[in-house]
């Protein structure tokens, strides 16, 4: 029975947890490790959770706490990754965004500041309610709202800049094709 429940949880939540881990860590291997750790924790301690309807929040919370723990350790030992911080980008005006595919969306999400990224990822990846997000991140509902609001504002700016970059690349390719034809 226990193994059956584990398998069901694995089938249901492996993909969403991996995507959440990837959005947080911005690294495939770290995301795999975080997801693996989460299920190992369930195998070790999940039996203590009497209400299995809470399993989803439990799994996401474990993953998020492990990510924060890893980040604290990483920051004590500065690496080249620390230079890879993203400038805060504010959106100018409102428009629709040309999100090409999952990779472009994930890249944009990963570019949002860490503090805003976790609630955004839980909202977009698993359609969590604000109450669920507050429970998983262990923050008040008002904090979820303000982080989501600022996070979406930042995301709009990132998407807008990414879109402009894509247009420039396309225009550049067109111009170089035109020049080669004239020659």
């Amino acid at each position, binding site marked *: 029975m226990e193994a059956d429940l584990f398998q069901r949880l694995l089938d249901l939540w492996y993909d969403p947890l*991996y995507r959440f881990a990837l959005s947080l860590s911005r690294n495939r291997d770290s995301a795999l490790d975080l997801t693996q750790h989460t299920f190992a924790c369930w*195998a070790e301690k999940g039996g203590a959770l009497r209400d299995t309807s809470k399993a989803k929040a439990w799994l996401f919370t474990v993953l998020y706490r492990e990510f924060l723990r890893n980040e604290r350790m990483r920051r004590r030992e500065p690496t080249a990754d620390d230079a890879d911080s993203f400038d805060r980008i504010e959106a100018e005006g*409102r428009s629709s965004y040309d999100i090409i595919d*999952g990779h472009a*969306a*994930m890249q944009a999400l990963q570019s949002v500041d860490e503090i805003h990224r976790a609630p955004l990822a839980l*909202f*977009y990846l698993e359609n969590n309610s604000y109450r669920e997000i507050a429970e998983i991140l262990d923050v008040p509902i008002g904090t979820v709202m303000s982080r989501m609001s600022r996070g979406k504002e930042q995301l709009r700016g990132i998407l807008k800049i990414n879109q402009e970059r894509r247009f420039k690349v396309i225009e550049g390719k067109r111009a170089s094709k035109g020049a080669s034809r004239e020659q």
Partner: protein
Amino acid sequence: MNNEKAKLVLSVYRPGGQDAIDPTFDKALDQVRRDPAMAVWFEEQRRLDEQMMDALAGFPVPSDGRLIAGLAIEPRRWRFAFRPLALAASVILMLSLGVWALLGDRTLQLPETATLTQISLYLTEHQSSLGLMSDDLARVRSWLESREGPVPGKLPPGLAQLTLIGCETWKTTRGRVSLICFMGEGQQVAHLYIFEGAQSRGDLPSMNAPSFSRENDWLLASWQDGRSAYVLGAPAAAGTVIESYLKS
């Protein structure tokens, strides 16, 4: 409620309408109905949310990670089996039902017509847990032998260089089968199935010229050596070149 407060509240409003009956959003949604500028903002946000959700839902997830995560249940399963109360209850139940014999002869039912590669894929799908977690090949061999499971002869050179994860063995209606699980670079898993009695599978090639195939997103190599038949499987999505596991 002013527009700034309404935007703050609505930033957590899900586009699928699940929150429509939540009173937390009542005043903010009223503001959207009253103020055209808010309506434009809200529509733009809904579009952004839907685009992000749709795009992220299709983001690919490595298939091998799930298999490895599935191994995590094993240690707990064993510990659970030896919890005193559970053990006592099991003993009483088994004695009263007289099912010791059944337990001692737990045989996996496999179709008579299935090929060895089909059996390997079936076992990967339905029996993915490992009885022993160990990176020590000698211990794996000993564990399999003690359970009368087929033990591999010499491992293919490439496979011997991978990290050993553990093993399992089953008694099936097609004879005894063992599994040895490995992990390569990038946490890619490889499963080596060993089938006893290769004499009845005379169509399999030798280890020097194995047969390669692809089924259900798994790359497979099969051969026979001595008294055993072998099927080696690895997920195709991981970009694995299965031939490399067989070469030195």
